[in-house]
């Protein structure tokens, strides 16, 4: 099977910006891979950043 990371996995070394954090009108968040256009109804609130930083931002959003 796939030997490289999936769309919602960190890159092998996770040093490059690969992901975004999106938000919709309901205040729900989504991790999103940089390689696809942001779907309608969502906007970027963080990134492009490494996977790790996106996760950190989701765990600890700014007040």
């Amino acid at each position, binding site marked *: 099977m*796939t030997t*490289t990371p999936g*769309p*919602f996995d960190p890159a092998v070394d996770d040093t490059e910006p690969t992901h975004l*954090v999106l938000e919709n009108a309901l205040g729900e968040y*989504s991790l999103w891979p940089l390689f696809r256009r942001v*779907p309608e109804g969502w906007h970027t609130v963080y990134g492009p950043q490494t996977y790790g930083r996106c996760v950190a931002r*989701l*765990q600890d959003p700014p007040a």
Partner: protein
Amino acid sequence: MRLTAAQSGMWFAQALDPGSPAQNTAECLEIHGPVDPSLFARTLRQVVSEADALRVRIIEGADGPQQLEVVEPTLPLKVRDLRAASDPDAEARAWMREDLATPFDLAAGPLFAHALFRVGDERWLWYQRVHHIVMDGFGYSLLARRTAEVYTALAAGEEPGESPFGRLADLVAEDTAYRASETYETDRRFWDGAFADRPDAPNLAGRTALPSRTFHRRSARLSPEATARLRESASSMRATWPEVLVAAQALYVSRATGSAEVVLGLPMMGRMGSVALRVPGMVMNVLPLRLTVTPQATFAELTRQVVLGIRAARRHQRYRYEDIRRDLGLLGEGRSLVGPLVNVMPFDYGLTFAGARTEAHNLSAGPVDDLTVNVYDRADGSGLRIDYDGNPALYEPDELGAHQARFMELLERIAETEPHTPLAEHTIARHAELTLVVDEFNATAHPVPPTTLIGPIEGQTVRTPDATALVFGDQDLTYAELNARANRLAHHLVEIGVHPGALAAVAVPRSLDLVITLLAVLKAGGAYLPLDPDYPADRLAYMLQDAGPACVIADRADRVPASGVPLVALDSLDTTPYGTYDPPRALTPHHPAYVIYTSGSTGRPKGVVVPHAAIDNRLRWMQAEYELAPGDRVLQKTPSGFDVSVWEFFWALRVGATLVVAEPGGHKDPAYLARVIREQDVTVCHFVPSMLQVFLSEPAAAGCKGLRHVFCSGEALPRETVREFGRVLDGVPLHNLYGPTEAAVDVTYHPCATDATGPVPIGKPVWNTRLYVLDAALQPCPPGVQGELYLAGTQLAAEYLGRPELTAARFVADPYGPPGTRMYRTGDLARWTEHGEIEYLGRTDHQVKLRGLRIELGEIEAELAADAAVGAASVLVREDRPGDQRLVGYVTPSDTGSVPDPEELRARLAGTLPDYMVPGAILVLDDFPLSPNGKLDRRALPAPSFEGSGDGGRVPSGHREETLTRLFAEILGVPQLGVDDAFFDLGGTSLLAARLVSRVRDTLGAELTIGTLFQAQTPAALAAHLDADHSEADHALDVLLPLRAGGDRTPLFAFHPAGGMSWCYSGLLSRLDPGQPVYGLQARGLHGEGELPSTMEEMAAEYVEALRAVRPHGPYRLLGWSVGGVLAHTVAVLLQEAGEEVELLALLDAYPSDQWRDAAVPEEADALGALLRMAGYDRTDELTREDVLATLQREGSALAGLPDRTLTAVLDIVVNNARLMREHDHRPFEGDALFFTAAAPRAEDWLTREAWAPYVSGSISNHDVDCLHPELTQPRRLDEVCAVLAARLKELDHA
């Protein structure tokens, strides 16, 4: 002359199947103009005479195959005028097809054939067929060019120029020189280095096959416009159009196979020197091109990879494909080096025959192993022609056509797209397929009212207050009664802070109270959080701390660990002051209805929060689809911690039907389930597929014809189970459902036809639900192509409780749904069928389902790795015998120097994880096996040893031994087994024992009980038993019962509990070292004869004598459960007094005589209870001996097969033992004792192990086992006991 390396490969391939025409290559040149057939024949004779490489036959000599020159062959040329035929071209094609199916005889030759057809006044077809061993594609072009040249000259009356061809001998010499050269070594090293990790070569079929004798071909043309744009695009990337085509094919293969790494095969000319370029012969080679296709890379970047890869390959193109496979060791494994071949033929013949223009058509390019994409660029400006040749063993013509059509559309889109956009923007699905899989298959919109899970239940109560809502055993409640009781509790819950949005944990075993409590929580507006009382305290404490519920409701106070969460203990709560009316509440469909914890990959379980709207949709769909009605009775048997239980609990109550609640533990017992279904007229029930399989093998299952619907979910449903269902329950509808907790139980459904074939689909989406099968670029996969399953729509859970990062990574933006909506990423692999159903294909990650229970292996691995002695840990599910899946753990030692102890690790896991997550075996390895690219090679991890002695043992003698040996091996799933291999040593379980007994019954017609297996555990012993036609249980009732006589360790003697029998210790066998002998000591009077002993001392003395018969002197190892513990202690003291060493005294929940002295001596009625306890059951309502026997039979107890006189004897023994124990006076034992406490609360709360203190000089080391006294010898408890016991025995072995 010998063969070249290139020819040798073909010779071997032909030798494998001499009659095969697969190595025929053929071409047809269409000539638009007049042709003179005799001149043409003359031309061919001249060209053939010039091409000596063509003019050979091949024989097998003493030193291998040799090619011999045929100096003047007869020219095989057929000339036909087909102008009179109704369709001359068709006639010609039919002839060619037939000719193409004719194999050449290599030894006879010639290895070529020609035909010339006149299909019009000015139109001719020149057909030639050549064996691939003498000609390749480039060779064809040399021959065709020379033929045109000679014909044109002759037609003009001129002498043709000198032959341009090189000699075959030169080719052979060049080949010989190459193989001895340094270049050869350099090339070998290059390919070795490039493929050292032996990458998988994914292909579109997903499997491999030998080449067939023929192939399917589908032809298509790319439009001239797209062809032109591709050429432009190629040059803008500084690449050639064939390179762009290879890149496009790599993209297609990568997406269609779900693999980022692809290896394409590229046929290459192989002609490096000037000699080879002039010889029309067989030189070509196929070379592997390895590419990585990621969604973020651009098409230009992929093309660059192709350009560089081809450039490198070309430098080493003379090294043979067969040699690379051999070097990598792929030959022996039958593995292929490459996936599809892309064969680009840019030879633009553009030939003329005396001025007449021509068009070339390839008819066969040689054998097709898998798939060959042939691309021709002919000179007529009509666009690229792309032929898909497929091996019929792997591809149906339609599949081939579907792949081709998608590839053609992909090429069109690539031609139109800016090459610097990410590959993720490309889908491999055709436009029509996208509409199908995204919209048409998902047309599930259905309006539902904005209600909650509880509202419709309250509505139903008003409609049918007197209907029976709930049945549990002999208790039942009407809708009105249930509602009133739930309301009273609900008012109390409201008072203590349960409200919409709040959680209330529920730790109540299956009962009326459980249903009442769940309803009460919902009525109060809260969401319920089920806590399975069987889970370890640590896990319950974690869930309480993680979820922070407003309260925890339990049937009694000691059900849950102290947590600071307010406790509602139902057994001490008086709800009568509260009202029976529905409590008012501000509950909306968006509020959470329940929170269920699932296994988490990072080592922490996570709470899935499911809103009312989600589960309400699910139940409304279910009602519309299956129409449950008053009179229907739904069985509630799934533990509340698993979400299948949600529809079981609430569906019936919303529509006026009746809910039948199974006993706690009843869901694991097929005989019980069959009885409940029959006796309670159950019409609807659910099974996890593996449990359904067990259920169907229960004879009583066939009596459950009153069922109207049986639902399956939780794991893949095998087709064989569906068929078996049809045989046992003919006419009962069976439904396969699928869904994760994260999408409100189920999102797909499929009615199972019992006569269908192939994998059982999980089906279509339910109401207001969309399913997407997406590839690595989040692009939809067309039908038939595997991808990851995503779910969207009303049923999605709200979140993982308190885990925003996990929520945002699993519930992600949905690019295909309404703006701003989410989709849930399941981690399941799936594909669409043509009919809009989903087939489940496995997992993308390490989550597994074992008996329907969802397990993250990562969670177990994290727990193992947390042990200081463990360096690294890996856990997998093995199926070393068919149908018997087991969790197996692997660990390596850490740097601390201490070696991990498997038994300690298992004990550790049992303390924190639910039973089903504790691996059955843990293996300690020095290192993990790694694949060449440094990853853990899971396939190389060793199986735990449950192996038979194989040929090491005595061979079976006689029909019975032979049959039994075969049946043992079959049931245990071991390839070989000796007649002296014991069933339980080889991992036999009670379930497997039941299967064995039934197979023996069917095969040999011999009546047998599981009990017989205890006394005759080997095929030899069982055969002897059957031969002697023993009355059951003969030797099994002797004083000394050899449970396992073999082994080199110090034997363990286990003393019987009150009933006098030691069968209960058979469970020790598979849990202790196979070299550990185990003997049971049993009461003297079991045969029903003789006096019973009159003192404990007398009994003990007799046992000392019995055990000295097998072990005359110490050290001794003694163990006893219950009364057996008292006996073990007494025997230990006697042995010590006789000067012997006793190195182990293990007491299983046994208490000294002093503690019993004042307790009443039991009567026969109590003795019945003791008999049940000995079989591992708590007494419920059995009053008479007949009741007890019925229970034992129903539970499949080994004791059920005992003759009457033995049962009578057992009852006497129980009473006698109780008396002796009360009269006994203990003397002190010098040494330590190992103690196991059945730690669940008991009626005899005065019992304490401290009472041993005067009689044990050393320490008493205690281990609590969370169970009741009778449960201590049940398998899962024995796991815990033996984890400690085995460790202690091992220490003694090493001391």
